[in-house]
């Protein structure tokens, strides 16, 4: 068959289709993804858009800590610009969160696929271990893990992976159990594809819908976790700013200087709300 369409026109149409494919359809998902993209842009541009270096102390500001023309969101007790620290803090969060989420999702997907596809003893072993990890209240698991292995980027990623891989695994397992009954899985098996091919190129792509929504929700939870660990003093070591520890440093000041803890707290809320709205919208899309 001949292609009679104008190539330019079809390229534009293909672009539009691509855009439409990736740009979410529901209002809440669009709102969520805009918030997330905003913070990603902030994190990337932090060195250029933040008015001061994050740890620079402005001694002149100490007589007037509150929001002013020179320090839009005010400074903390050490005279450090809150706006700059929030902008730089976005970096910390948006570096840890994608790594941790990707690691948790990778591990969760692998164990979920394995236990759903193979069944039997593998399934029972994985499910049993998952149940045990899931029986710990998550935050307590984090506290026990981080206080015993120490706070660092790698350890936080390990802790988040360990705590969330089992529940991701459960979801993937359920999806796999359903998908493996489809004809295309049997076809792949019949034509002698390897197990890995069947799992990752036949089953996994067909589970992407529910998994994308879950991914967004997990990323939101990881933001909360990173913030909470920072707040509890179990986050990345100072002095680099992160939102959770900014709140912790200034929470006792709230009766006098509420903005010091409030602004980083609100920044955190907006990012988490972005991820939840996206997850909610993606779920509705299906």
């Amino acid at each position: 068959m001949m292609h009679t369409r104008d190539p330019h026109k079809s390229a534009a149409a293909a672009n539009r289709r691509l855009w439409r494919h990736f740009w979410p359809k529901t209002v809440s998902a669009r709102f969520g993804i805009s918030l997330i993209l905003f913070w990603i842009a902030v994190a990337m541009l932090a060195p250029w858009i933040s008015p001061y270096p994050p740890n620079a102390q402005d001694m002149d500001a100490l007589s007037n800590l509150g929001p002013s023309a020179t320090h839009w969101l005010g400074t903390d007790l050490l005279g450090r610009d809150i706006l700059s620290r929030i902008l730089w803090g976005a970096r910390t969060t948006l570096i840890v969160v994608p790594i941790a989420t990707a690691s948790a999702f990778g591990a969760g997907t692998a164990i979920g696929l394995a236990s759903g596809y193979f069944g039997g003893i593998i399934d029972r072993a994985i499910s049993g271990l998952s149940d045990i990890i899931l029986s710990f209240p998550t935050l307590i698991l984090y506290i026990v893990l981080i206080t015993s292995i120490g706070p660092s980027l790698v350890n936080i990623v390990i802790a988040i992976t360990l705590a969330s891989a089992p529940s991701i695994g459960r979801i993937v397992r359920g999806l796999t159990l359903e998908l493996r009954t489809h004809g295309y899985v049997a076809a792949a098996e019949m034509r002698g594809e390897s197990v890995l091919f069947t799992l990752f190129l036949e089953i996994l792509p067909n589970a992407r819908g529910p998994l994308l929504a879950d991914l967004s929700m997990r990323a939101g939870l990881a933001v909360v976790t990173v913030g909470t660990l920072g707040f509890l003093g179990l986050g990345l070591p100072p002095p680099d700013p992160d939102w959770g520890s900014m709140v912790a440093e200034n929470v006792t000041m709230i009766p006098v200087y509420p903005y010091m803890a409030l602004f980083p707290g609100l920044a955190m809320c907006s990012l988490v709300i972005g991820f939840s709205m996206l997850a909610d919208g993606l779920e509705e899309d299906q």
Partner: protein
Amino acid sequence: MLAFALRRLTQLLVTAIISSFLLFVVTEFSPGTVSRQILGPYALPNQVALLDQKLGLSQSLPQRYVNWLSVLVGLKANPLGDPSLKLDLSDSRGDRYFGNFGYSLMFKQPVRDVLAGPLENSALLGAVAMAFIVPLSLLIGILAGANAGTQLDRLLSTGCLIVTSIPEYAAGVILLTIFVSYLNWLPGTSPLLATEQWSIASQLVLPAAVLTLATVGYVARIVRASMADTMTKPYVRTALLKGLTKRRIVTRHVIRNGMIPPMTVLLLQINWLVGGVVVCESIFAYPGVGRLLLQAGLFGDLALVQTITLLSLAIAAVTQLLADISYVALNPRVRLT
């Protein structure tokens, strides 16, 4: 029913043993030897060696786990209480009793004595929070679910989503800013000591509010989903065609059937509340178990960390069991095999 409960109980026991072993491994894995951690950085090498020997630290991990369990159930005396170690640790209950959780090295007291007060305080906080969470989430969920798809539903659901997304500590900061900094209606910390200005009840308001905010949205969304699902059932249409009012259909038919899944979620939420309590207590300097766990973890007080984590595991296990049993008891359609 009995057979089902028994089988779940056995499962529970197995889980308890494995998870306590994992807990033991993770906590004892801590950097530095266990004796160093107990005696502090300035201990003499011969003290460390003596304690290593007394505690049986040269033994294998499973063997040490069995020793630890034996102390816990009262079969063995806690080696730390030995006066020859000069650690100045003694227990008024004697050295061998059931439920011996060892000594807290941070407080130089038996863990049981350290935990008693904070445990009561946390239970109080949890109970007050639950007293708000249950009616509020049911009300919001039923309102939204019975009117699924309407403007009201959209408003309530989005509100719940946003409230759920707010991390506890951020919620704490927002509430503190409003009610303490601007309005000056409530105290900023809750040490549970009545002062002239603030009664104990007023000190409970904000911590309970933080826990409620963090939980209510999630539970309400589950209630809503279940209610909305039940509303589409054929018997609802039949009732409508029969001429029943919507109010009557919702209160008589939908709520009864739609409440089964949320009941179990509510019970499981207690488990989640345990974690939330840690953050909440840290914000308000509330003298409960959560804050104690954090302090113990940062200090390296192994016995205290282990005991509090075991307690939270026990709570998790019991609520899970209750949730399973209540699901079966509430729903006659679930068959027991």
